[in-house]
Structures are given as C-alpha cells and as structure tokens.
C-alpha cells in the first residue's frame, strides 16, 4: 500500500492503554451500587448540590470564571443553591441512563460543548467536590466499595458530557 503524508501512526498499545485508562466500564456490581446509593441521596439533592457547587467555586476559584454573571458566588448563595440542585438533578438523571450514558446525555453534551464551553478539566474538579459532599453527608453509606463505583460512574458521566466537544 502506498504511504500517504500525515502524522505518524500511534503505536497500538499506547492507544489501547489510553482508552482503557479513560473508559473503565461499569460492572453490574458498580451499577447496582450506584443506583442503590443515589436512591438514598436523592431526597437530599438540594443540600448535596449546595455543598458540591459551593465548594467547587470556593476551593477552586478558577471555576468562578464560568459564573461571572452571577451577583453572589459565595457558598450557600441563592444562585449557588439553585444551580447546585440543577447539577445534582443532572447526575441523578444520569443514574437512570446508566446503561447508555453517551446516548442519553447527547443534548447535555451539546449544551456544555457549544454553549457553555466548560473546559472538561473542570468535570474532575466538580466530581471531587461531589464525592466530598457525599462523604460528609452519608458517612456510613459511602463505603470504599460505593466510593469506587461512584467515582467510575462520574468519570464516565464526564466522558459522555465531553462527547460533542470536538
């Protein structure tokens, strides 16, 4: 076959390694752990949302750049509470879409990609603060086993949200 111009092909094992690191898929056990845990979390969605977003904005001030149009970015402000709930409801909705996150979150991905244009690095930041909020509000339920399943789920959720970026 004649060789064409263009960037050199990446070694296959490097591509596979990268892909595996990012798309560790959910086992049946993970899905059950996530669904069971978030069933308990759902009634406290507002509090969890407030803690998550408040901490994201306060502990990682660079995230405030996406909310410069808000009057009050301090922890617990009305806008932070409202938007925190929006975010957590999004996560709860994604639990229901756990068997097809990419397909189910296409529209939300388009929103984040084309309208909001949130740098995907920030998904890791908000995920970490969601874990902190879950740990402090559900200390007994957030066991190491639940922690790993939720962490995997959030990573895949973030990946689905990044789908339409480029």
């Amino acid at each position: 076959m004649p060789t064409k111009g263009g960037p050199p092909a990446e070694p296959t094992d490097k591509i596979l390694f990268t892909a595996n690191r990012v798309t560790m898929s959910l086992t049946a056990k993970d899905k059950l752990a996530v669904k069971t845990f978030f069933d308990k979390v759902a009634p406290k969605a507002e509090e969890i949302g407030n803690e998550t977003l408040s901490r994201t904005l306060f502990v990682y001030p660079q995230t405030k750049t996406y909310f410069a149009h808000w009057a009050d970015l301090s922890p617990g402000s009305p806008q932070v509470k409202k938007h925190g709930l929006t975010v957590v409801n999004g996560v709860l909705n994604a639990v229901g879409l756990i068997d097809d996150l990419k397909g189910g979150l296409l529209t939300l991905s388009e929103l984040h990609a084309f309208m909001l244009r949130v740098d995907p690095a920030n998904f890791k930041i908000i995920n970490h603060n969601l874990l902190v909020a879950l740990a402090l509000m559900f200390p007994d339920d957030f066991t190491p086993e639940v922690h790993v399943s939720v962490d995997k789920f959030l990573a895949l959720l973030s990946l689905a949200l990044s789908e339409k970026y480029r």
Partner: protein
Amino acid sequence: MVKWTAEERAAIQGVFAKLDYESVGVESLTRCLVVYPWTQRYFGGFGNLYNAEAIMANPKIAAHGIVVLQGLEKALKNMDNIKNTFTALSELHSEKLQVDPGNFQLLADCLTVVIARRMRTDFTPDVQAAWQKFLCVVISALTRQYY
C-alpha cells in the same frame, strides 16, 4: 515561598488536631488502593490486598498509613519551609520507591474524602480550601526532586 494566612494555619492545625492517625491513615490508603487499584503496584510486598475488608485489616497497610500521616505532620511543623523539609522524602519517592507523582494526587483526594467523612460539616469550604492548598504544597514538594 508559600504564604499562609493566620486563618489558613488555624484551619490546617484544626484538621490535624481532630485526626486519629491510626484510623485515618488506614482508611485513606484503603480507599486509594480500592478506588484506584493500579496504585497497588507499589505495595507488592504487603500481603493480602484482595478487597477493602482485607486492606483495612492488613497490619502492614495500617503501619504505613501512620507513616504517611507522620510525613504530613512534618509538613505541618515546617509549614514555612515544606519545600526543603521534603527534599529527602522527594528523593526517596523518586529514586527508591519510583512512584509516579500522579499518584500523590490520588492519595490526597482520598485523604480529603476521609477527613470530610469524619469532620462532616466542620469541614467547611474555608477549611477545605486551606487543606487543599496544604496538600498542593506537599505534593509539589514531593515531586520536586524528580528528574
């Protein structure tokens, strides 16, 4: 040179005052090894790491948890000079233990989750911010001697 406000110092000292090194150490390491299983590569000689229960009950992990927290305490006691305080530790992690520095962030995140779990609403955003800054400085110091 890292600048700490009086509030930040107080917040970080407050976290340590409430820390039970034994239980926090083992739980943080356990979560790290369970949530990020590839980190187990550094603990080949530690025996049974098969599941969370086994890791929590593993005496070598328990001992090592305390070692890690004592290391952090050293940073606390030398908050204005963490960089130089950790020169030898950084060399150790780089040359002898050969730990990928990316793992420091993973353990730090697990430690934060464990502290949040125990301190609950006492782990306010202010305290979390100071604590996060402290961990960033520690990780930077630990990474410094890598080449």
